[in-house]
């Protein structure tokens, strides 16, 4: 008799726990800002929304790229590439096999470590040897500076985890990598397209709606920014979608002056694959300083009440 109510109660509590509670933005002198917002002045909302939307577009391109890179590790199907005889690789040294986009480190007569040459952080290319880092540093993320050792374990930088291992076999003395996605190359091409895409967006506002258009040649069209919002505690957020023939990404980008969060979901057109990312960075979108953000928040405070 009582059970459904008890289940409902516990599920509601568990669900509500999913809501992250952020501290109200602190001003330089440590006061909470939502308590001292001033009466509004009109107008910069459009500009801010446009800037943020542009940032969202750029980030979406990254997200979709990342989606494609990540995708290859979750789908099913088998694709193998022969890397040649294992004796051709020097012992305990990283060798970049550019065509296969992997690093191979031979660690024994019949054993090797095979690692993806893309950073687990945002999919940038990794290089070896690194330009700086500790003595055991071997790989470096060109774009964001994460550093990894010979086993692909993270030593420093923004990456959340170590380099992605690539499944492989050593048969009759030859290394074969096994990729678990037959459409890998296709994903990669699209990813590259997204990377190459110049995020030049144009805006217009019929009825106050923000629409972002990307020149169609890139193969990815970014839809309207669904929502741009300035919260009373100073957080600015933009929601946008992007789609390509492979699927659709929806990203929620928010910044509070001390960092940026992106929550994105990518769903393939056939509905078979869904991936979710949460990404946090200390960089702020469009490089807002806390003070600028505060000014914006003050100016954008709704007039009502």
């Amino acid at each position, binding site marked *: 008799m009582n059970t*459904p109510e008890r*289940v409902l109660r516990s*599920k509601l509590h568990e*669900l509500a*726990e999913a809501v992250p509670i952020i501290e109200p933005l602190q001003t330089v002198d440590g006061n909470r800002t939502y308590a001292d917002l001033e009466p509004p002045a009109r107008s910069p909302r459009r500009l801010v929304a446009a800037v943020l939307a542009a940032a969202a577009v750029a980030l979406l391109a990254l997200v979709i790229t990342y989606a494609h890179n990540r995708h290859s590790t979750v789908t099913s199907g088998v694709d193998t590439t022969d890397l040649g005889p294992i004796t051709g690789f020097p012992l305990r040294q990283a060798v970049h096999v550019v065509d296969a986009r992997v690093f191979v480190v031979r660690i024994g007569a019949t054993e090797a470590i095979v690692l993806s040459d893309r950073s687990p952080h945002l999919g940038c290319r990794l290089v070896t040897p690194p330009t700086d880092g500790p003595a055991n540093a071997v790989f470096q993320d060109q774009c964001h500076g994460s550093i990894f050792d010979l086993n692909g374990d993270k030593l420093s930088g923004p990456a959340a985890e170590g380099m992605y291992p690539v499944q492989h076999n050593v048969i009759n003395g030859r290394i074969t990598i096994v990729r678990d996605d037959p459409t890998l190359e296709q994903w990669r091409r699209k990813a590259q397209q997204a990377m190459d895409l110049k995020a030049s967006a144009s805006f217009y506002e019929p009825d106050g709606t923000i629409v972002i258009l990307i020149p169609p040649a890139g193969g990815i069209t970014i839809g309207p920014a669904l929502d741009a919002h300035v919260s*009373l*505690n100073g957080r600015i957020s933009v929601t946008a979608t992007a789609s390509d023939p492979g699927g659709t990404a929806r990203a*929620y980008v928010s910044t509070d002056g001390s960092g940026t969060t992106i*929550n994105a979901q990518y769903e393939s057109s056939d509905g078979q694959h869904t991936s979710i990312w949460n990404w946090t960075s200390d960089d702020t979108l469009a490089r807002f300083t806390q003070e600028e953000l505060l000014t914006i928040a003050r100016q954008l405070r709704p007039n009502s009440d």
Partner: protein
Amino acid sequence: MTEPQPTSATAFTDAQRAKLIRAAWLIVGSRVDAEDAVHDAWLSCSSHLADVDDPDAYLRRAVINRCLSLLRSRERATRAVNRIVADDVIPPRHLVEFRDLIQTLPIRQRTAVVLRYYCDTPDTEIATHLGCAEVTVRVLIHRALRHLRSEIEP
């Protein structure tokens, strides 16, 4: 409006704030809207909270009012367009369907359910918030439970 700093008697604790934001999120389904409802309610109530009998209930009422008016205006605004709620809260996998089901409840039913089962609000207070009789609250909840039964009955 004149005295934004919380006095010690009516300090808005972090736990209170978190609870209210989460309750508001369960009702409106969007984190930014939930945060705004709570901050906005606090902004307009903080100066006279010390004068009311039950500050908790008073603040809750202010938040619920904002949630309800937001939902009503959202309903009006989205009639022509696809209903898209921008939200960044990602629930645990096993609760996604439950979340969706909660969000399909009619507004008043959802509010009643959240108040009773999440905020442990007595039915008399829920009736005041929703502007209806206490017996109506029980009816709303009864209907909501029936709607949710696929998720809450073993």
